């Protein structure tokens, strides 16, 4: 099943249980949102989720990988640049090529760009200020494995916390990203408009998150794991993980149907 394909199958349901999807949360030296991600996946949503150390070279047995926020390897050189050379990111590349779901959040997004798994770059925020606040995002694509439970064009609220989150790409790369519809989240105001004030860091085209061409790798600067429980002031991030779980279950069902 391709990531863009419909989740609904006209195949008759087998009724047989499929194994629960298994999530990996990668831990780099300097990751600091890894525990939050594991908490949401395991404690809030009840999924199977485990930490994977940055020296791990094999992701066999996992269905999805989360690259969490933080300051991997101290963010020396450029944010995500050193992490992109780590053994686990080589494994993530193979995992993504094989069709696995990969989501990079904040520093994880920076890692995916530095590793070349997503197009473009993230540079110092406009104004050189660290921005830690709630933002509004417009869901541009609700047909990805990460966003199927959102409505197209829906405006959601998520927190950001970063100093290097200004999306930049050379003109030809930016045009291609837009033409292919790879932008998944854009910074907007509460009414869904891309006003200059609604852009917290100066990102080109207000880009807050995007997918690769195949649609199975997502990177975003906002933190869905920090808004997956009402006690934290919002739950709009929760559906991102629930979308992944649903998509993986559907894929497992289809695969099981094919092999019987």
């Amino acid at each position: 099943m391709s990531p863009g394909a419909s989740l609904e199958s006209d195949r008759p349901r087998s009724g047989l249980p499929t194994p629960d999807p298994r999530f990996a949360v990668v831990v780099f030296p300097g990751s600091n949102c890894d525990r939050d991600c594991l908490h949401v996946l395991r404690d809030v949503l009840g999924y199977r989720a485990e930490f994977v150390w940055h020296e791990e070279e094999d992701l066999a047995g996992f269905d999805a990988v989360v690259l969490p926020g933080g300051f991997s390897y101290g963010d020396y050189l450029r944010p995500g640049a050193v992490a992109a050379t780590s053994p686990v990111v080589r494994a993530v590349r193979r995992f993504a090529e094989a069709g696995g779901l990969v989501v990079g959040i904040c520093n994880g997004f920076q890692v995916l760009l530095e590793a070349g798994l997503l197009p473009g770059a993230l540079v110092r925020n406009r104004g050189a200020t660290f921005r830690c606040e709630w933002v509004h995002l417009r869901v541009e694509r609700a047909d990805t494995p990460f966003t199927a439970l959102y409505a197209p064009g829906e405006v959601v609220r998520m927190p950001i916390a970063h100093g290097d989150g200004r999306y930049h790409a050379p003109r030809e790369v930016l045009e291609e990203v837009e033409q292919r519809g790879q932008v998944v989240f854009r910074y907007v105001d509460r009414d869904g408009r891309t006003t200059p004030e609604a852009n917290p860091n100066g990102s080109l085209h207000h880009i807050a998150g995007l997918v690769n061409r195949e649609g199975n790798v997502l990177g975003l600067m906002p933190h869905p794991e920090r808004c997956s429980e009402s006690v934290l002031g919002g739950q709009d991030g929760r559906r991102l993980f629930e979308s992944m779980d649903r998509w993986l279950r559907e894929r497992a069902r289809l695969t099981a149907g094919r092999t019987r």
Partner: protein
Amino acid sequence: MNKRVRVVVFLKPGVLDAQGQAVQTGLRALGLEASEVRVGKAFELTVPEEGWRERVRDLCERFLTNPLIEDYEISEREEVAAR
């Protein structure tokens, strides 16, 4: 023999240099009417002499810089003896 090499990196002209702008603000606060301030970074490394320029360029493209947003210049420093 080894080569001592310096690599200087700047954001490409089209990329907003937020650090440069902040430094410019500071310079102006101190009374210097500076403009077009850019902040870059420099690396110095010692590498085996054979094919050094090609190898350093390759590392610049793959790791030391992000070619999407940065330009770099490689220069030779004084020679140092192999250990």
